[in-house]
């Protein structure tokens, strides 16, 4: 009896530490300690769980923990910050599959109906999270094409899969001793995860990865119901809520509803070519240098291209030199810049850019008019003025960083290809825009060497 009390109290303490840890994540100054607090909670929960009297053999527990822990530690230490999105996607999938297995293992011949329903839920959500995350991982790491995969009849196939999942789940709950229904549910959940993510394009990945994050929490939550464990429910629902909020923020930043992201992708871009006035004005590094040298206020707006070019360190170097030259330098970060929420912030933090220099879109837009030079590095759709000006544009209404309000705009770009969304960008044709073509890292390197000589 005493051990149940210890277990119960241990779980209460662990839950409290999770909550407190998340609260400390509310500020960059306390965030790192908050993560340690949360980790302490996890340690307590695991130790308490190991005291469970039902455990008679620790061999497989130890084996699993050592193997999993080693893999986790190696990945955590070696992953490059540019690859964070795919790593998080992969980890989401692992969490989902763990919950799937726990739900499955909780199945006993005499389980109550409520337990059976929660077992089905943990298997379903866990399965969808697993394969959905694997596809997201494939797209983010470019092992699969990052574009949308659509085929005719997709809606019908998806509807059939959903129908099959529901029917299978009901039959399983009605007849839990028949393993066929269990396998049908597992199989269809895995298929559904694939089907749900393949039609979603690369630019929408921040939404998908947030949503899968949420699912991995909900799966843990459902597993908690299946095995009657309250700490799983608390921790799982905290994660579920976190993922849902991030999903909402990402959707809002793209001015699209969640169902629009999940089910339609970007509606096929209208073929009527909107006349864009003006012409492209390229600039070379020498001329760019003269303009930058005279600037007293510079705003850098990075996008996924900065991550691809690994240009964050040379950006920081440039910022240092400009500051030494007397200019004020800030960074404007769009919520969906990059491939996951906050991706740019982590890259720039790694390059030693202080976090108070990173401004959110709502902070930087009002002061854009007083900026001498806005430097756009590998960003496209998040600075596209069509979102404000062209009503027929698919991204019309999406909040963007108004770089065109700055006196001069430099756009660092590899070529004239359009962004992930495949939408023309009138910014490139504006009167005050200058295109600095080439690899972002090389172009910035030239500017750095000119400024430092």
């Amino acid at each position, binding site marked *: 009896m005493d051990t149940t009390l210890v277990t119960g109290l241990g779980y209460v303490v662990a839950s409290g530490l999770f909550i407190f840890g998340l609260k400390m994540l509310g500020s960059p100054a306390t965030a790192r300690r908050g993560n340690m607090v949360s980790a302490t909670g996890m340690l307590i929960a695991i130790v308490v769980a190991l005291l469970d009297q039902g455990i008679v053999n620790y061999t497989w527990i130890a084996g699993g923990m050592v193997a999993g822990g080693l893999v986790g530690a190696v990945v955590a230490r070696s992953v490059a910050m540019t690859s*964070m999105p795919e790593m998080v996607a992969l980890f989401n999938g692992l969490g989902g599959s763990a919950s799937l297995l726990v739900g499955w293992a909780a199945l006993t011949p005499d389980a109550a109906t409520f337990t059976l329903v929660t077992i089905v839920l943990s298997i379903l959500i866990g399965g969808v999270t697993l394969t959905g995350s694997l596809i997201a991982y494939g797209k983010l790491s470019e092992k699969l094409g990052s574009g949308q995969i659509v085929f005719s009849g997709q809606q019908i196939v998806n509807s059939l899969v959903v129908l099959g999942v529901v029917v299978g789940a009901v039959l399983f709950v009605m007849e839990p001793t028949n393993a066929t229904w269990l396998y049908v549910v597992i199989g269809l959940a895995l298929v559904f995860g694939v089907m749900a993510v393949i039609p979603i394009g690369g630019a929408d990945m921040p939404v998908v990865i947030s949503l899968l994050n949420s699912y991995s929490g909900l799966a843990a939550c459902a597993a908690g119901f299946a095995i009657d464990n309250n700490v799983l429910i608390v921790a799982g629902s*905290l994660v579920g809520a976190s993922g849902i909020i991030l999903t909402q923020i990402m959707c809002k930043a793209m001015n699209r509803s969640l169902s629009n992201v999940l089910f339609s992708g970007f509606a096929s871009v209208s073929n009527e070519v909107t006349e864009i006035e003006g012409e492209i004005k390229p600039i070379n590094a020498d001329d760019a240098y003269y303009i930058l040298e005279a600037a007293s206020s510079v705003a850098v707006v990075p996008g996924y291209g900065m991550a691809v070019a690994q240009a964050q360190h040379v950006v920081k170097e440039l910022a240092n030199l400009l500051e030494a030259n007397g200019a004020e330098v800030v960074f404007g970060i769009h919520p969906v810049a990059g491939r996951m*929420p906050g991706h740019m912030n982590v890259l720039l933090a790694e390059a030693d850019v*202080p976090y108070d220099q990173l401004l959110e879109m709502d902070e930087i837009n009002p002061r854009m008019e007083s900026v001498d030079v806005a430097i756009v590095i590998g960003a496209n759709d998040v600075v596209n003025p069509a979102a404000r000006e062209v009503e027929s544009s698919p991204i019309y209404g999406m909040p963007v960083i108004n770089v065109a309000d700055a006196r001069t705009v430099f756009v660092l770009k590899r070529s004239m290809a359009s962004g992930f969304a495949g939408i023309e960008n009138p910014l490139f044709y504006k009167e005050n825009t200058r295109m600095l073509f080439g690899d972002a890292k090389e172009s910035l390197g030239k500017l750095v060497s000119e400024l430092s000589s």
Partner: protein
Amino acid sequence: MNGAEYLLFILMLSVFLGFELINKVPATLHTPLMSGANAISGITVVGAVALAGNGQENLAQWLGAGAVALASVNVVGGYMVTDRMLGFFKKKEG
């Protein structure tokens, strides 16, 4: 313990608490938030150990052992990578 309604009660309170807490996390910390949340979702390991250690050499044990391994990757990897990332965040000096 006290059955389904008690667990549902816990669920409701934690979801509301989660919304309140996460809404206050600034955009600059969203990636560490996500990987930290990822580590927390490894809580499944707590449920998995009892299954993996049932000593019965049955399906539940093997499934449990698999879940322990997968969730451990999440827990260890998630917390470590979050700590590594948060170590980068610095305030401007002076």
